[in-house]
């Protein structure tokens, strides 16, 4: 899912400074799974904001509301009846959600409460790591299910580089595994090391964000 980090509190208070009536909007999907923007986190952030305002002796009115998904206009429409009561909306959803709400409520100031970071999966409870970059042309068959685009710091297709560390880490950080070491190990374990000698050709990045903002359409599903 999409993983995000809550913005530093000072940034949030700075964005909300001019406003008293705030709608704090959570999302029940990805940001709930990575514990940054679901109902619970909305409750906690609202509490923090109230405490910090009260400390300054400044008034604030926060409405807490969590949508099933913020990236679907169907759900974003749910807040139509009360969004008008608020001066600003701070959304805890990923960038997709923030923008869907901002687009739907054209005259409303919608700000992000989180920094959207990556597509990732859970490594263990409480730990999420980047797994996919959405390059638009998946080559996981060539690398036995380990992605060099997202997980190699240099996105090498014919790795590893000369900086790959003993112990299996990437040169940039000892806590970052060298995905090419993992790929080679898997090839060894599965007796597929001959795949390593295949020279992977240059990547066509036009299917990725480099080619411009992307869109997907299914005509058969359009109403």
């Amino acid at each position, binding site marked *: 899912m999409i993983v995000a980090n809550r913005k530093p509190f000072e940034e949030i208070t700075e964005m909300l400074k001019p406003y008293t009536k705030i709608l704090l909007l959570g999302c029940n999907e990805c940001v709930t799974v990575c514990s940054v923007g679901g109902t619970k986190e909305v409750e906690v952030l609202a509490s923090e904001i109230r405490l910090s305002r009260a400390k300054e002796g400044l008034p604030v009115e926060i409405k807490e509301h969590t949508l099933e998904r913020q990236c679907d206009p169907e759900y974003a429409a749910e807040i139509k009846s009360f969004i008008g009561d608020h001066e600003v909306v701070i959304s805890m959803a990923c960038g997709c959600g923030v923008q869907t709400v901002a687009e739907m409520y054209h005259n409303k100031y919608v700000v992000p409460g989180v920094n959207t970071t990556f597509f990732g999966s859970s490594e263990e409870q409480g730990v999420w790591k980047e797994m996919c970059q959405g390059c638009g042309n998946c080559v996981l068959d060539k690398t036995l299910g380990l992605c060099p685009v997202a997980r190699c*710091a*240099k*996105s090498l297709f014919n790795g590893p*580089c000369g900086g790959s*560390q*003993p112990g299996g880490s990437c040169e*940039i950080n000892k806590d970052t595994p060298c995905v090419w070491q993992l790929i080679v190990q898997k090839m060894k374990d599965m007796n597929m090391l001959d795949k390593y000698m295949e020279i992977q050709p240059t990547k066509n990045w036009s299917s990725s964000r480099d080619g411009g903002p992307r869109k997907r359409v299914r005509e058969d599903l359009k109403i």
Partner: protein
Amino acid sequence: MSTGSNLEKVLTSGAFAVTGECGPPRGADPEVIKKKGAFLKGYIDGVNVTDNQTSVVRMSSFSASLVLKEMGFDPIMQMVCRDRNRIAIQSDILGAAALGINNLLCLSGDHQSFGDHPAAKNVFDIDSIQLIQAVKTMRDEGKFISGEEVKGRPNIFIGCAENPFADPFEIRAMRLAKKAAAGAQFVQTQCVFNVEKFEKWMEMVRDLGVHEKVYILAGITPYKSIGMARYMKTSVPGMDVPDEHIERLKSVPKEKIAEEGVKICLEIIERVKAIKGVAGIHIMAIEWEQIVSEIVTAAKLYPRP
């Protein structure tokens, strides 16, 4: 078909080659390069010019190569994949060939987090092996990566780097084989301090027959100080510095440390010269270019052919 490269001439003649290195300055003053070059003149067959090494902004490898060319050197222009996309890369290859630069060393490049601009965008459009392939295709088939025609082929001697000391060790020889298959003609290795490990790597390389496909130049760096040896041991990715070297440097009085460093260096050169498949050495005397003449002479590699 051969290129105008002096290094290629020396290697194909069967002579033991010696290359050196020149790091461009962090400013626009070409005198810095000229001064470094003056120390190396006559002692090397080709000079590497680094490309924003360790991701620190320096005068470009292209321009510094030209300065050295004007001094009579045969520059080995280094090109990394970190900062340029394939459009800029192919463009620079054409430019380099147009201005008489005969050698290109194709590298991935250190990640920008090591340098002075860690906030920069990561390019890595293509990797080092794809870069080698691109140069070869432009030169031998007259085609760009896109498949379109190159009008005026760049005649370049293609090099690459390999690190016998990085992990996973078992595939390091395979990786060199891959680079050779892609079109690499010579390879310069990371500095050799652990000669046993290097010998093992050369054995794997010979088993794959790669020593007959690429000219292998062993990387050589003299220790200038204990601090330098320690720094390379702990803070430079992919370096293997044996503890016994540090002990040897510690065992001599302060004024004699550099001398001991050169002694160790000469011992390494002798051992490496004797390994089957090694076609030369690449001396990286970083910020100590003055020592190259002494090393080359003492190793009985002077004068150059």
